[in-house]
């Protein structure tokens, strides 16, 4: 679709050509979707690379996925070749003139997160998303995201090692997401990402076993949209006060979904599972978003953000 300046947004000091951001874990290391005829990186403001740790990780055994009503479960287990390899062998191949690429950092200790930040600091990624909400690993991940003090420690450890914008990805699997958000902002997070997947499971009733080898997995897709909106609403109350932008996500598959997230407070719009449904979803979203702005005589996407009348 033709680019329109109405959809350009500022996000944590970066200018995104559109509010759409392709989410970590759904688009590999940035190269896979470009194989599809008609797919264009120009339609998105940024692509977030698969969750990356300091050392390579094999990931979980299969099955890793399962379709559920209006969504899916995944338990990939952060399969990745390690931060060094990503920076040295993957980033040089990415089409940097087409869009921005952001890293997604993971670890089992604040120190490891810090090391990953340092490696990506010396690389062309425009920003680093901190995943303290992965439900599919035994150590770190969501255990950090559930504890406001731990979350802050991780953010602080990364803040010390990089000057790039840091975006902390929050988990819906905790009692007080607004408190975690506040602690992460205090620790130096430039933006927030809301929400990661909800923990769930599925049963193979013929074999009476869990479908996923990891037993539990992360629920994504339209099924989680109402939860995502509610968590976004809670986080926005804190973030808006500090002028911290939010990358909203969770089940966005239509322009209407994207608009709902913007109204509740998302400056950028994350697309994950929606791409599995339709790999050419982005231009359709942009068209619908643009139409809405025109119909409501709103000059820019950012003017729609956080306009919920409560």
């Amino acid at each position, binding site marked *: 679709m033709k680019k329109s300046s109405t959809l350009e947004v500022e996000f944590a000091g970066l200018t995104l050509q559109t509010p759409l951001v392709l989410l970590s874990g759904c688009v590999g290391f940035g*190269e896979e979707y470009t194989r599809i005829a008609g797919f264009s990186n120009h339609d998105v403001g940024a692509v977030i690379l698969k969750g990356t740790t300091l050392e*390579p990780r094999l990931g979980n055994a*299969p099955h890793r996925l399962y379709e559920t009503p209006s969504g899916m479960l995944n338990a990939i287990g952060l399969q990745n*070749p390690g931060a060094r390899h990503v920076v040295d062998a993957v980033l040089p191949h990415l089409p940097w003139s087409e869009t921005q690429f952001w890293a997604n950092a993971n670890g089992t200790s604040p120190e490891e997160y810090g090391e990953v930040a340092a490696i990506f600091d010396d690389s062309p990624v425009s920003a680093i998303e901190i995943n303290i909400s992965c439900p599919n690993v035994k150590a770190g991940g969501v255990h950090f995201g559930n504890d406001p003090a731990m979350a802050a420690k991780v953010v602080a450890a990364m803040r010390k090692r990089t000057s790039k914008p840091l975006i902390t990805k929050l988990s819906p699997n905790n009692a007080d997401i607004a408190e975690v958000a506040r602690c992460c902002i205090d620790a130096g997070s430039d933006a927030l990402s809301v929400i990661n997947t909800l923990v769930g499971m599925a049963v193979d009733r013929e074999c009476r076993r869990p479908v996923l080898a990891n037993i539990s997995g992360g629920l994504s897709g339209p099924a989680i949209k109402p939860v995502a909106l509610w968590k976004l609403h809670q986080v926005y109350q804190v973030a808006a006060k500090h002028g911290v932008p939010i990358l909203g996500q969770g089940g966005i598959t239509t322009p209407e979904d994207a608009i709902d997230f913007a109204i509740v407070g998302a400056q950028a719009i994350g697309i994950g599972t929606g791409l599995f449904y339709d790999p050419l979803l982005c231009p359709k979203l942009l068209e619908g978003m643009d139409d809405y702005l025109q119909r409501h005589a709103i000059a820019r996407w950012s003017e729609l953000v956080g306009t919920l009348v409560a």
Partner: protein
Amino acid sequence: MPTTPFPFQPMTDPATTSKQPTIFEEQAEILANVSYPGDQFILRLHAPNSAQHAIAGQFVHLRCSEHLPLRRPLSIMQTDRERGTIDLLAKAVGDGTHALRDQPVGTKLPLLGPIGRGFDLSDPDKHYLCIGGGVGIPPMLFAALSLPDPTRVLVLAGSEVPFPFALAPSTFLLPGIGGNTIMAIDSLEQRNIASRLASKAEIYGCFNGFVPQLAANHLLALDPTARAQRVLLACGPLPMLRAVADLGRQLQLPTQLSLEEYMACGIGGCAGCVVETEEHGQRYFRRVCVDGPVFNAAVLPNL
């Protein structure tokens, strides 16, 4: 968990990810949808891009119904480049495939394809033994039809429900396959491609047993030089694939297996569809959708 960087990276080796053939998204119209016994059905879809570019062993990722937005992977059985059609053979096993079976002619379904690494049929000195079981038969037919020389291929197909193809007595004599095992797939027979069938369902003219046994009988009856020229290709249920892998190992024949795993994106983005491989003494999880679905049996010791 390895502590040294992987020699190959399933998700990041530029050789395996960039500059791969284009994958097309098209609205595929159902031109024919024919049911067969045993919950089987054959679909003919108008999908010109997939028809044009597909090679044997590749699959399409097809949305089966509006209510099930995740797509289902189905192997390509046959293409007609001029008419822009592809044929699929599926079995209704769950929600998606049942919904697909019930789709009327004229329906358009979002289809992504062609996807995956197909069979390697490039060695002109080899003779390909294609072993298919049930809904694993389609890629074997595609492989057989792809080979320029029909004398270099034999298709052995097994099924426990009636075959969804016209059958005819074969005119080919095959070492190790005798007695009543005379029926063949008519469309192959007409193209001078030899085939035979196996079933425990007492279907007339079929070998009474599993298809890997029929393959073993044939291979063991070949003289050693002829046997050494064989390459085994297989697609079907896991026990069948294991039996074929064992056979290939015993007879030291190159063996290519087409695997299945649950998929989400179907194009390599989510790392959800993995199988465990062992390469150069290292363990990996490789993606069935783009690193496969066809794998060399030598990298699958834990199949």
